[in-house]
């Protein structure tokens, strides 16, 4: 695999750090008053999803990570595996429940998700920023009260729970921002 010097670091570059593949979020040059230049680099660990901050000295090298991102369509779930398909090659990918667990509540059949592969194995799934979910359960709706309240919890058909306005009732379709788990509007 290629090696990258700190001077070549740019946002989005995928590198190996502590034997996990990571993506660079931010690379900031810091220079102590009378000292040499360091780079403070913010990474996202692509397996754990955690953000890491490391400091490097100018001229250091890191190994690149063999990471690929594919747009795949979510097909269906059969017990422990979630099945996706590449719409160009029609190749199918069966993905283990452990990798899906964090985003399970946002997977809607036919939606296109970004699947990250490391050494050709899926390591994470990013659902679309907005998905349409159906309200499975919530307290009965109250009419008229739309301002000044924080809403009520609602369980979606996929199992995810989020706050919705009081007028939303069971069976409604709502638009959800998957990045912050928030109700955006009625679909």
């Amino acid at each position, binding site marked *: 695999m290629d090696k990258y010097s700190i001077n070549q670091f740019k946002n989005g570059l995928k590198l190996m*750090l*502590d034997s996990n593949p990571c993506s660079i979020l931010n690379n*900031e*040059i*810091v220079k102590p008053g009378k000292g040499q230049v360091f780079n*403070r680099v913010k990474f996202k660990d692509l397996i754990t999803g955690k953000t890491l901050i*490391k*400091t*490097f000295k100018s001229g250091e090298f890191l190994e690149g990570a063999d990471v690929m991102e594919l747009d795949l369509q979510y097909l269906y779930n059969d017990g422990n595996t979630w099945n996706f398909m590449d719409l160009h090659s029609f190749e199918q990918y069966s993905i283990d429940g452990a990798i899906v667990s964090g985003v399970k509540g946002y997977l809607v059949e036919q939606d296109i998700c970004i699947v990250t592969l490391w050494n050709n194995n899926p390591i994470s799934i990013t659902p679309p920023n907005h998905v349409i979910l159906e309200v499975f359960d919530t307290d009965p709706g109250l009419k008229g009260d739309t301002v000044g309240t924080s809403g009520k919890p609602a369980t979606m058909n996929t199992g995810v729970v989020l706050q919705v306005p009081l007028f939303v009732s069971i069976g409604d379709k709502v638009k959800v921002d998957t990045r912050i788990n928030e109700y955006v509007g009625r679909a």
Partner: protein
Amino acid sequence: MIRNILFKKQIIIQKIRQFFREQEVLEVQTPILQNTSTSDVYIDSISLTINADIGIQSTQYLHTSPELEMKKLLAQGSGDIYQICQVFRNNEYGEQNFNEFTLLEYYRLGFDIHQLMADMVNLLRMLGIQDKVYQLSYAQVFSQYANIDILNTDIVSLKIIASKLGLSTDFIWIEDLQMLLFVHLVEPKLKNLPLCFIYDYPKSQSTLAKVRNKVAKRFELYLNGVEVANGYDELQTKDEYQQVFICENNKRKQFSKLISQIDVSFLSKLSKPLPQCTGVAIGINRLLTQINEIKI
């Protein structure tokens, strides 16, 4: 919008001038073109070729700081002085680092670093910075934020700590490791202390500051986690300066960097030592950004 920003900048500069006028600190201007490049290991001068067309070509350097020129004035009996000027440094790039920036440099006779820090607080108050003042020694911040006894830990042990954190250990000198760990472990925490002075540095980071009781009498000012100023209890004798210049040049040699000529015109002015004084360099652009929360 631009007029608004320029206006704010003008007000701040006027207040700085007023502050020094009230304290009878004289404003000076010193030459920007220098015959020698800086000897600072990690600062690079920008060089220029001048007078080529009239047959007396020579290489000169834009000053990286007005420090030595101002010390020449101090040595000749100028008394308290300050200067606001553009300085030029090569190989600086980033959100906080530029090839050209504005520096306020000032010297107070008879002050120690604690008196100078108190004086700076008065200046910051006048410029509208009202935050609580934190003053912590270098050893304190390391112990508090990194649990490291930085003054009593040798290079081998620091390398072990760095390697456990997954950081580079490829350093020849202990000061580089101290700075790496500072930048990695301490500096991000300083964002929580909006107005913070850090003082008494390890003697390996003394540069042009006096060493007393095993620590270098230096301080740095951090505003919202951004280093804004660097102050010293200044060395006074010719021999001390000469020793630092030679030592820094030896380090530059190991990095295959441009070796600076010893600044003989400076040393020749020190036949009589500098008066006891402390001096500080303040990055004006960084200061303005912190005051106005806008990019200047």
